[in-house]
Structure formats: structure tokens, C-alpha cells
């Protein structure tokens, strides 16, 4: 798209202003992670640590077995990511590119799974997993991803699949292609940007999930990073300096994954070769 110089300048200005607003919490986290307790809470706030307490990182990451937490988190994140991307895109295909009786009713029923507050389904879910003997294993955190990966993701992909012109399928049908082939060779590649969004969300979602691990895990050898972060909170006070340092360390991989991941959907790869 061609843009006038004026529009570009206005755009830059707006972007920079918004970015300043949005970067504040992260900068706050970073600067707090390098401060001692009294400086973290100084009012009005100080932005530059004095001195830089690099030691916070070493202390916070060694006082708890963060290597174990990291391994567990990675197992969950990778497991969930594969399951979500694979099965949510298949299901979304079924809900958008195939016409069948009752399709929209089934979809509406699946949508209801997002409408009941988790607080009241939590205990029944926990009891179910426990009955099956999976309490204190990572399975309750991973396996559901292989069954559709959550209606949020299916819904999101469905919306994208619906925008792909029908002519593509029709043409393929004429050539004798099956639904599987259409999914694999047309829809899947064309919706890559949406799939990457789903992958990112699923990565970040399970990376930061706290309540799931809290409920389903018992032994600390299975604990995740999100659970480990909470351990700096004491009865009367929290060790804010260590908490902030550990939080920063845990958030950093997310930032990197995002930085890398977003370039795949931002550059409009999707539509190369697609002429509406």
C-alpha cells in the first residue's frame, strides 16, 4: 500500500506514543528486577536501579529449582502446542469448509464450554482426572489439547477458513481431490498466519497457566515456572526483589518467542499467490 509522507509521520508518532504507554509495565518489571527492596517501593518511583542488583537473578533462580520447573514447563508447552495446532485446525476445517446437517448446532454447543465460570467446573474436572488416576501427572495439562485444542482456537481458525474463497475447493473437487487433500494443500497453507497466532497463544497460555498446575500437580518435581514464581510470597511479606527478578527471567523467553513468531504472520505471507 502506498502511503503519503504525512500519514506515515502521523502513524509513527501515534505508534511511538502508544508504545511508550504499553512498554511501561515491562520496563517496570525489568527495573524492579535489578533493585533492592527499598528502591522498588520508593515513591515517586525511580527508574534506574542504583546500584544494579544483578545478583537478584542469581539468587532468585538458585533458591528454587528453576531448572526442573523449566523442563516441566517445556514438556507441557510443546505437548500442548502440537496438539492444539494439529487438532484445532482439523476441527475448524470441519466447522467451516464442509457442509453438514447440524454443523452449526454442534458448533454452538461447543461454544458453551467458554461460558461457565471455571470456579464451578474446576472441582468436578479435578475429580474426573483423579478418578482416572492422573492426579499429580502432567497429562491433565496436556491431553485436552489433543481434543480440539479448545473452542477458542477452533472458533478463531473457523473465522479465517470462512474467508478463503470457495472456488478453490470447487476447483479441487473437479480435479477429484478429497477433503483431506483440500485441507492439506489449500486451507492449511493458506491459513498459516492464523495458525501461527494459535500456536503463539497456546504457547503463551500454557507457559503462564497457574491454576491448572496448581490443581493437578502435587509433587514439586512436576512444578512449572508459573507455580514456582508464586513461591516468593511469604506469610507476611513477599520477597519482591527476587519475585521480580524471577518473573523477568520467566517472561523473557516469551518475549523472544513472540518477537520471532510474529514476523511470520505480519508480513502477509498468507496471500502470496492468492488472487481474490
Amino acid at each position, binding site marked *: 500500500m502506498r502511503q503519503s509522507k504525512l500519514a506515515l509521520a502521523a502513524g509513527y508518532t501515534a505508534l511511538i506514543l502508544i508504545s511508550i504507554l504499553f512498554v511501561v509495565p515491562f520496563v517496570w518489571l525489568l527495573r524492579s528486577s535489578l533493585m533492592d*527492596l*527499598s528502591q522498588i*517501593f*520508593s*515513591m515517586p518511583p525511580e527508574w534506574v536501579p542504583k546500584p544494579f542488583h544483578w545478583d537478584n537473578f542469581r539468587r532468585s533462580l538458585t*533458591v*528454587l529449582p528453576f531448572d526442573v520447573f523449566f523442563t516441566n514447563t517445556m514438556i507441557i508447552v510443546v505437548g500442548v502446542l*502440537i496438539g492444539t495446532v*494439529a487438532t484445532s485446525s482439523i476441527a475448524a476445517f470441519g466447522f467451516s469448509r464442509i457442509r453438514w446437517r447440524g454443523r452449526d448446532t454442534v458448533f454452538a454447543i461447543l461454544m458453551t464450554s467458554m461460558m461457565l465460570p471455571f470456579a464451578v467446573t*474446576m*472441582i468436578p474436572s*479435578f*475429580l474426573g482426572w*483423579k478418578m*482416572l*488416576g*492422573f*492426579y*499429580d*501427572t502432567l*497429562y491433565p495439562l*496436556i*491431553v485436552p489439547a*489433543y481434543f480440539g485444542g479448545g473452542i477458542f482456537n477452533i472458533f478463531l481458525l473457523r473465522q479465517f477458513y470462512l474467508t478463503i474463497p470457495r472456488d478453490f475447493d470447487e476447483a479441487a473437487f473437479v480435479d477429484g*481431490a*478429497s477433503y*483431506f*487433500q483440500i485441507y*492439506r*494443500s489449500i486451507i492449511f497453507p493458506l491459513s498459516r498466519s492464523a495458525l501461527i497466532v494459535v500456536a503463539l497463544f497456546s504457547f503463551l497460555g500454557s507457559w503462564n497457566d*497457574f*491454576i491448572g498446575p*496448581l*490443581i493437578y500437580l*502435587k*509433587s*514439586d518435581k512436576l512444578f512449572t515456572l508459573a*507455580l514456582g514464581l*508464586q*513461591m*516468593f*510470597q*511469604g*506469610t*507476611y*511479606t*513477599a*520477597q519482591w526483589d527476587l519475585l521480580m527478578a524471577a518473573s523477568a527471567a520467566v517472561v523473557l523467553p516469551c518475549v523472544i518467542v513472540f518477537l520471532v513468531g510474529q514476523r511470520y504472520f505480519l508480513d502477509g505471507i498468507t496471500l502470496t499467490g492468492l488472487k481474490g
Partner: protein
Amino acid sequence: MKRQKKTVMALIALLLIFAAVMSACAKSGTENGPSSPSASGTSSASGASGASGSKDPIKLRMTVWGSPEEVAAYKFAIKRFETKYPNIKVDLQHIAADYDTKLTTMVAGNDVPDIAMMESGSIAYPLAEQGKFYNLQEFLDKDSDINMDSLVPNIMYSLEPGNVIGIGPGPESFGLFYNEDLFKEAGISPPPTKLSEAWTWDEFIEVAKQLTVDTKGRTANDPGFDPKNIKQYGVSASTWWGVYSNFIYSNGGDFVSEDGKSFALNQPAAVEALQKISDMMNVHHVSPSPVQAKNIPATNVALQTKKVAMAIDGQWATAGLAQSKFNFNVGVMPVLKEPVTTVVCGMFSMFKSTKHPQEAWELMKALIDPEASIEMITSGTWMPSYKDWYTEPAMLSKWTENLDARPSGYKDAIVDVILTKGHQTPTGYVKNFNKIMDIVNPALDKVWLGQQTAQEAMDAIADKAQQQVKGRRDIK
């Protein structure tokens, strides 16, 4: 055709992944099944003869919350315990956040620990009311090492008289912390440490006024004092019930009446105390209002950076104060009618479902033994639970002398007061406390902001609060 084959292969591969995952689940399910703690509890039930001398291996489970230091203290206590009882293994489960949520799901799943750390204001009483806890009185009566009298008063929680549901690892009381340098600079004598010399409320406010300074250097006594731009407050006190309960009790008031039948925060004694606290913020301007209090950091930082001259806070603040290197000290809180401090503490409770009550009791004793948690006590966070640590000079000196966390006023202002003038926390004896406070707290918000007098606010909700009054636990 080739393509189709590929697709089929991909689908088969996917199905295989499902199958692998599911079978792995199923397998581990059967493998893990018998070794899961709840099951092992039953399998070792045969060894539960009750005597601590039993040689069969026993496993006890306990859940706690707390910072890494606090958990380290529990681990130390457990290690001592395991050395003494080599046949017992203790599995410590650290639930750092949302403890109540986690414990509730554990109860729902019949997977409770033998001993759990509990808090009187949350789910401890609901659990006890359903008969989930042992009455520890039975153990105390039979025990040769400790009894009711050997423990500091007010660290036991009872469902009703004679039914002890939990014992605290250590009490916490309140004091008036202050920055010594500020008092020296202002030429004012610091808060007294002896109860007999305690300030009256008016004396306290007077001192606080002299120490409240606006950005132009005027104190609250000076003409032209600008209460909107205060640089240094005379005193900070949170609007948490733990803090203001001290003054309600000191004024002879209470949350509910003595017979437990009526709501009492609208009675003159309580109202007067609440109003005094509101006036401190809104009339005298010597203390930050709840809104301004958002600027005030934790007590140690607030005192060190001279944001406030004095702070009413729990004795646990000494741990933070000890780490901030400045001259702090502690005095007794001002007295309205009677000198009183509210005593708050967590507790250890024993689940009825334990297969080894006697061993669990021994573990509980090991946990509350001050010798085991000496580091938490000397660092300032805790106080000992055994009375002789307060009364025997040799033991007292172990945790009150030559320590950063224990300034010169500590023995008089904290140690003496908690033994003689302690008052149980309202969560320990007011039934249905949370529901009452759900009604009281929103009304108090208006009092703290000076929008309503304490009398108006409490009268307005008295009927609704009365409906939630369900009696007291400390009377039959």
C-alpha cells in the same frame, strides 16, 4: 494419488500420536495408582498402631504456605523430627499461592494431608465445623512435654471451649515502630516502652502532629499547614481489622457482644475507637487516608525513607526493619482505656483422616518447637510459641538480645505485652466473621474517607450485620 497417500499417512501418524498419548496415560495411571499418597496411606494403615515407637515405616504429609525462608525453617524442623523418629518420613508440600483453593480441591478429592497449616480467617473453621480436624485438646491433656500452660496465650484456636482445632507456630502482636533519628531531630521524646507509661490517645495525636510535616516544612500544629501536600506523616496504620481491632479492644469494645448475640461495632466503645482512627486521618491529618496510604510503602521502607515517623504494625515488620539499616525502635501502642494487643497467628491443624494421629501430633510439636525455628525467630519474622522462652531470662536473651531485629524497646513493648495483655484475634472467636465483615468493610470505607461518622456508618448496617451474627466460639 500420491498426494492422497501422503494425506492418509499423515492422518495415521496423527492417530498414532493420539494412541500413544492415551496409552501412555493409561499405563502411567495404573503404575502411579497404587503409589499415590492417598493410596499409600491406606496400605500402611496396618502399621498404624498409634505408638510413636512403632518400627513400621510411616509417611506423614503436610501442607504449608510461606516464603523460601519459612519453608526452610519447616524443613529444618522436619529434619530434626525425622532424626528422632527414623521410621517416619515427612512429605512437605509447599503451596505458595491460592492455598485455600488448592486445599479445597484436595478435600474434594479425598487427598488431604495429615497436617495442614491453616488460617483462622479463611477455611479453617468451615473445615472444623464439618468435623475434619482432630481435637488437639485430647493430645495436650495426655502429653508429658507440653500442655495448655506451657504455650503462649492466644495461639490456640478453638471451635468451642474444649475443642482445640489448631495450634500456632508462633504468635504475632502489634507495636508502635518508629524512626529514632526523626525523634532526635525534632527533639521529642520517643514512644514509651513500658505499659505503665503508655501514651494516651491525645498525647499520641499531639506527638504525631509535631511529626507531620508538609512540603513547605510546616508541622500539623503550624498555621497554614497544608494537609494536601504532606511530606512526612506522623504515623501510618493500615485500615485492616488486625490493626484497628487493637483500639476497639483497648477501648473496651468488641465486634460482637459478650454473649455473642448482638453486633457490637455500633456500640459506643467500638464506635469511639473507629472514629478516633478516622479523625487521625481526616481531622488531624497525621496519618495517610486509605487513598493516600497507597503511596506509603512497607513499614520498613516508610520509616527508613522518613515518609512516616511512626507506624503501627505487626511485630513481623522487625524482619524487614532489621534489613533496612537505620535506627528504628519500638514502643507500646497508645492506650484508650486498657492496654491491649491483638494476637494473630496461623495454625497447624490435624486432619481426622490421618492414619497416624500420634505421630502427627509429635510432628506438630516438632514444628512449634522454638528451637527448630530459631532462625525465623531471631530474624524477626516469628516469635516463640513456648511460654518459658518469654519468662526464663536465659531463653529470652537467645532471641531478644544483640539482634538487628530486636531493638532496645522490644522486650518491654512487645514481649511483656503479648504475655499479659494479649487479646485473641476476632477470627478466632467471632462466628461467621467473614460474612459480618463483608457488610462492615464497605461501610468502613466511607468512615476512613471521612464521608460518614463511625456512628452513622455502623448504625446504617447494624441490622444487616446483626443477621450474620451467629455467636461466639469462646463461650458455650
